[in-house]
């Protein structure tokens, strides 16, 4: 499947097969989750990041089935570059109606960045002014967990984390995704 036909597929699933809800509801729900976590964990932003990632992971494990069922994908991606393309053009398109740019491939094609020109989760957000949040909180960290969980279900163990965020005053919002390994089917041990 070529890159353009993936873009078309993402568009089609988004238009025809996705129930839409009000974007503000999503933004506000996500916002209140993050704000409540910050409050409950007493401003321990490292822990907030961890919890968001964990929640995202649990979402990813489930969301992948919806993704596969709706997008009708039956072919495994031939390589990690294909995977990146599908994540951006089909995955993000059908769930958030955005298509993050793929950039900064490592030379071994095992790491890439997703650049978010827009981020529906972070609309209206300004990080608290306590001197820590700006440097410690990754506001949209749930997305990392979603990707990690979803790819794990299709036999890819990956690491995903944000390296910059416009909310922190950076120029771009960038998520770095690295392939750790492909999870092989575990064959039963030989009896003899």
């Amino acid at each position, binding site marked *: 499947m070529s890159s353009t036909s993936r873009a078309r597929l993402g568009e089609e699933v988004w238009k*025809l097969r996705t129930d839409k809800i009000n974007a503000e509801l999503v933004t506000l729900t996500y916002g209140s989750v993050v704000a409540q976590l910050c409050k409950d964990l007493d401003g321990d932003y490292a822990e907030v990041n961890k919890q968001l990632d964990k929640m995202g992971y649990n979402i990813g*494990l*489930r*969301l*992948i*089935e*919806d993704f*596969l*069922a*709706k997008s*009708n*994908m*039956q072919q*495994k991606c031939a390589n990690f570059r294909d995977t990146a393309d599908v994540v951006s053009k089909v995955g993000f398109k059908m769930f958030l109606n955005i298509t993050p740019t793929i950039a900064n491939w490592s030379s071994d094609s095992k790491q890439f960045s997703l650049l978010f020109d827009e981020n529906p989760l972070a609309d209206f957000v300004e990080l608290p002014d306590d001197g820590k949040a700006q440097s410690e909180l990754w506001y949209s960290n749930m997305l990392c967990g979603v990707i990690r969980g979803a790819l794990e*279900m*299709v036999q890819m163990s990956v690491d995903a984390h944000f390296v910059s965020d416009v909310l922190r005053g950076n120029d771009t919002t960038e998520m770095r995704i690295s392939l750790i390994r492909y999870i092989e*089917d575990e064959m039963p041990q030989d009896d003899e």
Partner: protein
Amino acid sequence: MAKKEQASCSSTANLQPTLSQPHPSAASAAPASPQARFRYLATMVVYAVLILNKAGGLIYQRDFNPGLQKLSSNDYLILAGTFHGVHAITSQISPTNDSASSGLEVLESENFVMRCFQTLTGTKFLVFAEPRQPNLDVVVRRVYELYADYVMKNPFYQIEMPIRSEGFDRHLTSYIKPHQ
């Protein structure tokens, strides 16, 4: 044998035109509409649906129409485990050079046809139906969609565990037996 086939053909004769007509047009046009899918099922007899988790454990089994032998719950587990093994073997040994075989997909016998669909996550969906049913692949895909919606999206469902979901049961029944 030939006589028997004829007999069963005549009993399904009324559904053959409706089944074959929308098919070519559906292939050329956009994906079949939900209504079109229901039309297939209005005359289709699906015996049972089984769902296997990626370890080969049976997580869902339900009969919809009489026609299959009733097994004990232990036998269903054995059936699932055995099929899982056979599927693994068939996906390893392939007569073609292409190493990426999807494994066993269709099993046809005189009395039933079984369609298996394995998702990329490793879950298997098995649909048993009357022999010579076309479009079973559409049915099995739709079952997958219902599973994605009503099972996986339920936050209290534990992944890989047996499915006890009233919503899933209800929607599956109304899809497979729309007029009953």
